[in-house]
C-alpha cells in the first residue's frame, strides 16, 4: 500500500536551496529510470536501426528490377542469380519559385545502364499518392509503374494499384503527355480512366507527366554523361 494519502510536505523550514535540491532528490527514481531507459533505447536503436533502414530502402529497391525490366525478365534474372546494380541519386531541379527534389534509382545490369526508376508523390483524390515509375535508359518509354502508397477510396480509386490498370502505362512514349479518357483507348497517349474514379486516374497520370517533364532532360543528360564513365 502506497502512502499516498499524506500530503507531501516540503522539507520543514528548509532553505530555498535545499528545497531546490529536494526536487532533484525526490526525483532520483525518475532520473535513474531515465538513465537506464535512455541507454537501453539507444541500444535498441543501434541494434535494430540498420534493419529498419534496410527495410525502408528495400521497399523501393525490390521493385526496381520489375519496373525496368518487366516482371518476367526480372524473375529470370533473379533465377539466374544475377543482381542489378542499383544506385540511388537525388536530382533537384529548379522551377520558378520552387526547388523540387526527386529520388532517382539508376539500374545497371552488368555495368550497363538498363533503366531508371523515379520516385514521385503528389496529391491524389483522398491523400498523397506515392509512386515509382520505371523508364528506359534514354527515358523514352515507360517501363513500369508501381504505387507505393495511396489512400484512395476503397473499391474505386484504390483500383489504381491493380496491375490491370497500371499495365496501360507500360511502353507508353514519354514524348507526349498522357491523357486520361473515359472508355476505350484509341490514341497512343491515352489512358483508360477507372470507372467512377477519374480523379484518381488523373492524379496518377498527372504525377507521371510531371515527373517525366521534370526529369527527362536530366536523365538523358546523365545517361550520356555516364556513358563515357562506362567506357573508361
Amino acid at each position, binding site marked *: 500500500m502506497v502512502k499516498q494519502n499524506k500530503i507531501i510536505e516540503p522539507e520543514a523550514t528548509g532553505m530555498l536551496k535545499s528545497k531546490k535540491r529536494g526536487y532533484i532528490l525526490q526525483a532520483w527514481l525518475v532520473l535513474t529510470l531515465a538513465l537506464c531507459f535512455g541507454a537501453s533505447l539507444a541500444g535498441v536503436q543501434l541494434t535494430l536501426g540498420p534493419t529498419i533502414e534496410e527495410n525502408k530502402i528495400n521497399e523501393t529497391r525490390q521493385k526496381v528490377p520489375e519496373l525496368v525490366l518487366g516482371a518476367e525478365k526480372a524473375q529470370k534474372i533473379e533465377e539466374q542469380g544475377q543482381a542489378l546494380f542499383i544506385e540511388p541519386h537525388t536530382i533537384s531541379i529548379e522551377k520558378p519559385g520552387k526547388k523540387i527534389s526527386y529520388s532517382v534509382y539508376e539500374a545497371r545490369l552488368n555495368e550497363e545502364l538498363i533503366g531508371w526508376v523515379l520516385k514521385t508523390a503528389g496529391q491524389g483524390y483522398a491523400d498523397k499518392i506515392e509512386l515509382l515509375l520505371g523508364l528506359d535508359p534514354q527515358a523514352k518509354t515507360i517501363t513500369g509503374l508501381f504505387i507505393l502508397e495511396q489512400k484512395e477510396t476503397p*473499391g474505386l480509386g484504390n483500383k489504381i494499384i491493380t496491375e490491370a490498370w497500371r499495365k496501360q502505362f507500360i511502353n507508353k512514349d514519354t514524348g507526349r503527355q498522357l491523357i486520361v479518357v473515359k472508355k476505350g483507348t484509341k490514341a497512343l497517349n491515352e489512358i483508360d480512366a477507372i470507372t467512377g474514379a477519374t480523379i484518381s486516374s488523373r492524379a496518377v497520370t498527372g504525377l507521371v507527366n510531371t515527373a517525366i517533364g521534370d526529369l527527362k532532360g536530366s536523365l538523358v543528360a546523365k545517361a550520356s554523361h555516364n556513358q563515357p564513365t562506362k567506357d573508361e
Partner: protein
Amino acid sequence: MAENIKKIKTAPVIHVAPSPHLSSMALTTRRMMIDVVIALIPVVLTALYVFRWYAAKQLFICIASCFAAEMIFMKMRSKAFSLNDYSATVTAIILALSLPGTAPWYVGVIASFVAIGIGKVIFGGVGMNIFNPAMVGRAFVMIAFASAMAASGYEDSASAVDAITQATPMDAFKQTGITTSLSALFWGPTNGSLGETSAFACIIGGLYLCMRRTASWEIPTGVIASVVVFAGIANLVNPQSQWTVLHHLLGGSLLFGAFFIATDPVSSPLTPKGKFIFGIGIGAFIMLLRLFSGYPEGVMFAVLLMNALTPLINRWTVPRALGEQ
C-alpha cells in the same frame, strides 16, 4: 391506467383535462406526412415516366424494405408497430427517389435498413432523429457501394430506357465539359437519381408543400438564395464556364433536396430565423462540395452536415421573447 378508472358519474360523463380545451383539428402529424406523399406524386410520376420500370423497381424495393425494417426494429424495441403515421412511407419514397435507377437491389435494401435503423429507430423513433433518415441511408450506401452510386453507376449504355444510357448532366459536364440544355434539366428527360431529374416536378410538389405550410418556405428559399449567390460568385471568377447559375439551380438534386429533404421538420431548426440559416448553410455546402470536392453532387452531404449543426443553430437562434431586452 385509464381503463382502471371507474366511471363514477353516469350520463353525462364529465372528465378533466388541462387547458386549453379547444384544439385546432385542422392538422395532424399524420396529415402532414400524407401531404409530403401527395407533394411527391408529381416527382414519382416523372420518375416513372423517365425511368420506367427502373423507378418502379427501386420504389418497390425501398418501400417494402423500409416497412420490413420498421417492423423488425419496432419489435426489437417492443413498441407497437404501425405504419399509420406514414413516416416510414415518406422515408422510403424519398430514399428511393434519391437512388439511381440502375442501383442493384441490395443497395435499396441496405439503404432502407440503415435509414430506419441507424437513421431513426436508434434515436428513439419518429420525431427524435437528429439526421434525415433517408439521407443517412443514402450516405451509407453511397460510401459503401461507391462504384454503384458514383456518377458512372448511373449509366448503363445497354439499357432500353433512354435516360439511363446518357451520363448524368453534372457528370457529363465535369468529365467532358458537355452542358445539358436548361429545358432538359427543367423537364427532366435526363439521367440522375430517380427524383432529381425534373426540376419542374420538384417545384410543383415543393410549392404545394410550402403552401400547405408542411414545409417551411424559409429553407428552400435559403438554399436557393445561397446557391445563386455562390454560383454567381463562381461564375464571376470563372466566366468562361458553361455551367451557369441556372444550371446549378436546375441540375442535380438541388431542388429535390431543397424542397423535400432539407425541409424535413424533425432534423431542421425550429425557428424561422434558424430555418433560414439552415437553408443558407445547405446551399453553401452544396456549392463548396460541387465546386471543389470529388463528388459531382453535394446535396446529401450538405444536408447531413447541416443536420449535425441544427442543435447548435437552435441554440443560437432562441427567439427573443416579447419584452426581452
